């Protein structure tokens, strides 16, 4: 068996014992933890929270046809959990931001001053550190997929960074994972009770405010200056036509103002 680097190893018993009520499933390799969670959903109780963790993901997905690259030393996992909001509830749109907030809160407790790039990325020093992809399943559950660059090699991707590059020693994957799962679970579970607290935290972590951005929704694009996040989670952008709210698609930073 191939010997693994210590910085790439996971302490599975420690993870299992420290993630509270969350059920834990582990595989060394999967195509995508989101697909694994979806395939498993019908055999799991609707009210449970399940963590699907894989050491390697061979076909991780981002939005649309984007691919999430993950290798040894990174964290790729999905949380299958009940969705507190039905399809018509606009608060449903807060789930990605809540996940991003959970990631930032956990990583900031380790000294990494991360920021949210609306709506589903986490950046550190202007580079992408983590991505989130959320999918609904069974109409009342969601799969929250997360990919975080920790000790893995990212030097071939100019726009990406990892925690290892900014720490004196390799980061303990298991400890980071436990902190992330706890923080995401808490943040998502408390949206309903404290939406204002979430929006306040998003404003604190917002990495786009004041920047010139280009938004793209399907085939439509536009530019403007990001003004912050509205209470429904949409991105407020000041354009030459006035202020608009962007609810879907993606945003690219054109320049810092």
């Amino acid at each position, binding site marked *: 068996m191939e010997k693994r680097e210590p910085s790439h190893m996971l302490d599975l018993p420690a993870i299992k014992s420290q993630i509270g009520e969350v059920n834990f499933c582990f595989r060394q390799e999967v195509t995508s933890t989101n697909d694994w969670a979806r395939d498993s959903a019908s055999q799991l109780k609707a009210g449970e929270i399940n963590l699907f963790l894989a050491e390697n993901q061979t076909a991780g997905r981002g939005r649309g*046809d984007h691919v999430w690259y993950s290798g040894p030393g990174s964290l790729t996992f999905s949380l299958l959990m009940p969705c507190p909001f039905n399809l018509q509830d606009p608060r*449903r749109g807060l*789930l990605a931001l809540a996940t991003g907030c959970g990631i930032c809160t956990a990583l900031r407790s380790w000294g990494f001053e991360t920021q949210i790039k609306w*709506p*589903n990325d986490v950046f550190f020093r202007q580079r992408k550190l983590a991505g*989130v*992809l959320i999918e609904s399943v069974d109409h009342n559950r969601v799969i929250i997929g997360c990919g975080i660059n920790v000790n893995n090699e990212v030097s071939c991707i100019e726009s990406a960074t990892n925690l290892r590059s900014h720490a004196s020693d390799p980061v303990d994957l298991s400890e980071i994972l436990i902190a992330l799962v706890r923080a995401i679970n808490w943040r998502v579970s408390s949206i309903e009770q404290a939406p204002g607290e979430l929006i306040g935290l998003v404003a604190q972590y917002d990495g786009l405010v004041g920047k010139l951005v280009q938004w793209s929704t399907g*085939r439509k694009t536009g530019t403007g200056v990001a003004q912050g996040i509205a209470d429904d989670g949409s991105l407020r952008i000041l354009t030459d036509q006035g202020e608009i*709210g962007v*609810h879907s698609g993606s945003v690219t930073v054109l320049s810092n103002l």
Partner: protein
Amino acid sequence: MADDKNPESEVFDIDRLRNLVELMQEHDLSEIDLRNEAKRIKVRRGAEPTYAVPAVAAPVAAPVATGGAAAPAAAAAPAEDDNTTAINSPMVGTFYTRPKPDAPNFVKVGDHVDADTVVCLVEAMKMFNEIPAGISGKIAAVLVKNEEPVDVGKPLFKVIPD
């Protein structure tokens, strides 16, 4: 829509106007506003541009203005002009006909669906929401193109109910 009153001004040259209109059509521009010192020509196509929340079934959905209250939409509602029922979008977002770029569409015209059949995805703030048909029947039409923005209440499919 021009400010210049000089009849000899070449800014009103008909060929120039024709070229501008062709350019606007070619690039799907809604407005051109040219100025040269005191001379000005401003040409606009279609309705006044707006970023307000479009009415239900408006052809363009996003972006929408901040503060527009989103009324919950029924998943399925009778269409006005025939015996079909529309499956409407329950949220603002981007419409996807298939679960992944390399996968087949969830449904196609002629398919039979049940209330729980997933007919499409609508992505809102990077959450990909499976949209159920909400009705049993046969898909009569797909009303929105893949990756098109949709608003709350936008009809997505026509269904002939069982």
